[in-house]
């Protein structure tokens, strides 16, 4: 039964990991920018959910509807005003710039929210369901289902909507997209906005499960790295595969050799994948 519990835990956690990573993967794939603010966006989303629940008693699944447009606008403006100026610069410059922006945002959160760990606890608590001996808390199930829904939504947007097709076109071939009349600058900003919105929503879902603190942003960012590299850039399914694989490795690893080594294991796996299979499990050039 332990095996079944580990597998179910991995499945639940894996969908959340995919949700954390998917915005990061979109920005990396389309803009060719490693967005180090991603972790802080997630934490900010978690604070938003926490604040809405504490002050207005709005449950987190409704907070998603607030977070998505808010973060989209924030991301759009950030890309338009700052990142767009260095978008053609080498890796070092864009990476360092997003690091600087992350320092600002993270410091602002520490300043306003303090570094204390907070927890969003629902009243009344939702309990858990059990099937045979496998136990899953209901709030976790809701978070996982929402994460899957968000992932599916992004897939549909990229697949069906005009703007989604334009994003995919820019990722596939920037120059050809320009020739076809795509406004690349605004597509960049929209893609970054989507990335930010997904990060904010992921944060709202994280608030249901994990404690909230500005100090956790680097953990989320690390997960996003690993998931992107494992699953491969360029597809929604890749992020899902990467998230599930990471959750599985962490779950099995911490059961077999102890939770202290789970992080080491996941990063070691990251390095192995980078060297042996840099395109990831399901990586390819297009984004859907």
């Amino acid at each position, binding site marked *: 039964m332990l095996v079944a519990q580990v597998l179910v835990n991995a499945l639940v956690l894996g969908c959340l990991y995919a949700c954390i990573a998917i915005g990061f993967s979109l920005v990396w794939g389309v803009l060719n920018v490693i967005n180090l603010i991603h972790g802080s966006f997630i934490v900010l989303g978690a604070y938003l959910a926490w604040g809405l629940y504490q002050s207005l008693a709005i449950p987190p699944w409704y907070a998603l509807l607030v977070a998505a447009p808010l973060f989209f606008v924030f991301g759009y403006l950030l890309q338009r005003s700052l990142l767009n100026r260095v978008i053609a610069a080498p*890796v070092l*410059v864009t990476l360092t710039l997003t690091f600087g922006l*992350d*320092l600002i945002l993270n410091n602002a959160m520490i300043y306003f929210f303090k570094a204390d760990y907070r927890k969003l606890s629902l009243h009344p608590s939702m309990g858990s369901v059990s099937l045979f001996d496998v136990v899953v808390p209901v709030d976790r199930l809701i978070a996982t289902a929402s994460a899957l829904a968000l992932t599916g939504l992004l897939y549909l947007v990229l697949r069906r909507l005009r703007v989604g097709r334009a994003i995919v076109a820019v990722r596939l071939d920037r120059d050809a997209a320009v020739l076809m009349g795509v406004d690349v600058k605004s597509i960049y900003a929209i893609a970054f906005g989507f990335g930010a919105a997904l990060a904010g929503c992921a944060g709202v879902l994280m608030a249901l499960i994990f404690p909230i603190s500005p100090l956790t942003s680097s953990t989320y960012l690390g997960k996003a790295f690993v998931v992107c590299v494992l699953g491969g850039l360029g597809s929604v399914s890749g992020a899902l595969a990467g998230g599930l694989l990471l959750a599985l490795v962490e779950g099995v690893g911490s059961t077999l050799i102890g939770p202290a080594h789970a992080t080491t294991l996941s*990063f070691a796996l*990251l*390095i192995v994948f980078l060297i042996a299979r840099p395109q990831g499990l399901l990586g390819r050039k297009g984004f859907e």
Partner: protein
Amino acid sequence: MTRVNLALLVLIGCVAALPWFGGAYALRLGTIACMYAILALSWNVVGGFAGYPSFATAAFFGFGAYATGVLLSDGLPLSLAIAATLTASLLLAVLLGVVLLRLRGHYFAIASLSLVEVLRELVNNATDLTGGGMGLNIPLASGSGILADATFFFFAMWGLLLATALMVIAVSSSKLGFGLACIRQNETAASMVGLNCTLYKSIAFGLSAGFVGAAGGLYAAWVHYIDPSDVFDILYSVKPIVMALMGGLGSPLGVVCGAFLYLGLEEVVWRNYIQIHSGVLGVLIVMLLLLLPHGLISLRPGMLRRKPKHV
């Protein structure tokens, strides 16, 4: 020896006069200034000369700190411990470099970032050897008084800075430096004309890591207490990059000036805005990248023969 390199050595020589002008605070600041300059100069070998965006500085800084810490706890004298640390970091980096430096661009950046995480977690979990999260206490080297101790460590760090500068100058004027410049400009072409790119990059990575490791070792011996989250702080990876960008990427003189200027700014910010110091650092980084992307040295390109190089 070009004029710029001579200017670099003169600048470093001037720093040595510090103990005659200031007290304990100046000594502390001077030691940190030398340490930052070592980190920035070393990073410049990989990041500036070869153009590889390495975020592994913190990994080797922490490795060096712990290697020296453990060796000193075993009763080895400081000089021997530092020499052993330098060699060990160099070898480790060459071995890792052969594997990691096959990656380019974003992938290399992420791999080097995760190297810091892996080493930190390993040190965190090897409680028997390193003390894990409790940190490692390092025995006091001498009992000759606070000021004498501070002076000793200042000169030790300064000596290491001089050695690093000589290494960088030697690299930049040798075949190795030329090869690294070729790799930066077009690695595929460099490899086509018969340059052993992997070997060159690995040597550069090793040299850079060796001196960073030694600096970490001196730091550990100087502060007597280290813990994983302190010496494996990712900021040790980012600060050298900011210093190099501030001074002018690829130019050793610019990089050292950038390190000193950065320390000055950091001191002012720490002293006045302790609560928001990392935010101010962030603002500084953003302004620098948007307004002065080629660094201080690009302000008067006519005065110096070597022009700043692009990333």
